[in-house]
């Protein structure tokens, strides 16, 4: 891209951030938008067992509403496993959070059942694990991990209203997931994205009856850019360069965390693609298994790719000294094909000792683990 990217945060609140992104490609800015909306894990209620429901709403209705309740998911990348990645047979404290709700109305008044009535409970296994020998994931959780978001001064989420004699009693299991599976797992409630507020690039056509200017008033972002002169010819080579975004979260994650995780997720996707093209990478397989759906566990796959590219890689690193080269540092741990991808999402800091040929040989174990931090100990990825 032309020149280095520029970021300017215009406004930062705990659940929203408004920023301007400059000197990036339209495709890239859009990828950032897509990734924060759909690829960041959070926690949401995924299963509901209804013990008693004499309210006016059917079970499904209530179950669906429960799924939408935002739960505090800070650091859930590391603090929780996907159920599909967990070794437990049917849910354990590492991959599930149990919540309970039990409200009966005995008053003459109507009672609101809200997300405040949801309480986190230890679950069917009890808290057999004390905090000392708790798995690593549990130690990374904040004190209110998995609790419904409860903003001071804000109304809780209304689930149902019940009158005298009615009862709602249920148990829920909350799990980690991403919004590609179901929108309830999206940490974002709204992401706004705008470029070219004056429509200089004519990426859109303004339909109007009489006066285009009057019928299409300029938004606040228009102040950031110079208005085109009346007689200015259309520049058909111009490309969008400045993007105005606002990311607003539902409270399950902070805005800052969403952005940083979004960038990390983009890197993971790219890194997985690189690892996929390079042949003979049997050592990366195991540890990274199931990462974000990107990797199979079968190391053998890598050997199948044709070796031709290996040579090309070697030659090319020499040719392009500025591009980061994969290093041939001795892997610090493990050996053979069972090496695990280390956690360090090595970014721009690839060591530059290209060794060329063979491709596979050039992969230091320490560099192989792209993706979310803290994956080293368990190999579970997001």
């Amino acid at each position, binding site marked *: 891209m032309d020149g280095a990217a520029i970021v300017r945060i215009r406004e930062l609140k705990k659940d929203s951030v408004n920023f301007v992104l400059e000197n990036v490609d339209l495709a890239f800015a859009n990828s950032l938008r*897509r990734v924060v909306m759909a690829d960041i894990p959070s926690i949401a209620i995924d299963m509901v067992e209804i013990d008693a429901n004499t309210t006016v709403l059917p079970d499904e209705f209530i179950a669906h509403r429960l799924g939408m309740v935002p739960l505090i998911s800070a650091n859930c990348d590391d603090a929780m496993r996907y159920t599909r990645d967990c070794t437990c047979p049917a849910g354990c404290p590492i991959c599930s959070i149990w919540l309970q709700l039990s409200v009966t109305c005995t008053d003459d008044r109507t009672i609101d059942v809200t997300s405040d009535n949801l309480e986190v409970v230890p679950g069917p296994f009890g808290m057999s694990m004390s905090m000392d020998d708790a798995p690593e994931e549990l130690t990374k959780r904040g004190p209110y991990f998995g609790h419904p978001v409860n903003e001071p001064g804000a109304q809780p989420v209304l689930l149902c209203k019940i009158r005298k004699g009615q009862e709602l009693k249920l148990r829920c299991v909350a799990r980690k997931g991403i919004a590609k599976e179901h929108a309830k797992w999206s940490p974002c409630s709204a992401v706004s994205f705008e470029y070219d507020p004056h429509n200089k690039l004519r990426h859109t056509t303004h339909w109007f009856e009489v006066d285009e200017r009057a019928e299409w008033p300029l938004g606040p972002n228009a102040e950031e850019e110079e208005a085109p002169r009346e007689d200015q010819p259309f520049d058909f080579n111009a490309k969008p360069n400045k993007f105005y975004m606002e990311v607003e979260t539902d409270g399950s994650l902070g805005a800052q965390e969403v952005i940083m995780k979004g960038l990390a997720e983009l890197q993971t996707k790219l890194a997985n693609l690189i690892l996929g093209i390079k042949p003979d990478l049997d050592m990366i397989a195991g540890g990274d298994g199931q990462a974000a759906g990107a990797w199979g566990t079968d190391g053998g796959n890598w050997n199948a790719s044709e070796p*031709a590219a290996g040579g090309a890689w070697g030659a090319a690193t020499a040719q392009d000294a500025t591009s980061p080269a994969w290093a041939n540092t001795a892997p610090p741990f493990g050996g053979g094909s069972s090496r695990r991808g280390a956690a360090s999402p090595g970014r721009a800091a690839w060591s530059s000792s290209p060794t060329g040929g063979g491709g596979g040989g050039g992969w230091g174990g320490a560099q192989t683990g792209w993706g979310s931090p803290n994956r080293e100990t368990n190999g579970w990825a997001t």
Partner: protein
Amino acid sequence: MNAINRHELFVLDEGENPVEVTEDTKIPNAATIRIAKQDHTLGNMVRAQLLSMPSVLFAGYKVPHPLQPYFIIKVQTDGTITPQFALETACNDLIKMVGDLEVKFKREFAFKDADGATGSNAAGGPTAGGDDPYGGGGGWSEGKDYLDF
């Protein structure tokens, strides 16, 4: 009705190759790369980056069917590099750029936090009990010592 399970959109099947390269037999220096369980997020970004490289003659991607969770990207180069290497370079450049952006975002967030007002440390209140429930700063900044090798 014909849609696959939602989780299959992003979880690789057993033994599925995440990336498959098919070299084109009729066009020189061209390859079609099939990338499984990824979508426009990755495809469009990589395509745009490839097009910005002088040695790439053609780059295009498509998601052949909306119900099938993969995309293909076609790359043709001028012969100085292989399409695979072009793709790899594009990814490396993008990773570098994202890394750069990450640093800049971090700095901007730090500035805004220092400004006081609205930073993540404002997230107190009854639920928070003093501990920041949003992990603002906490969560992702730990364990990011990616220079540890």
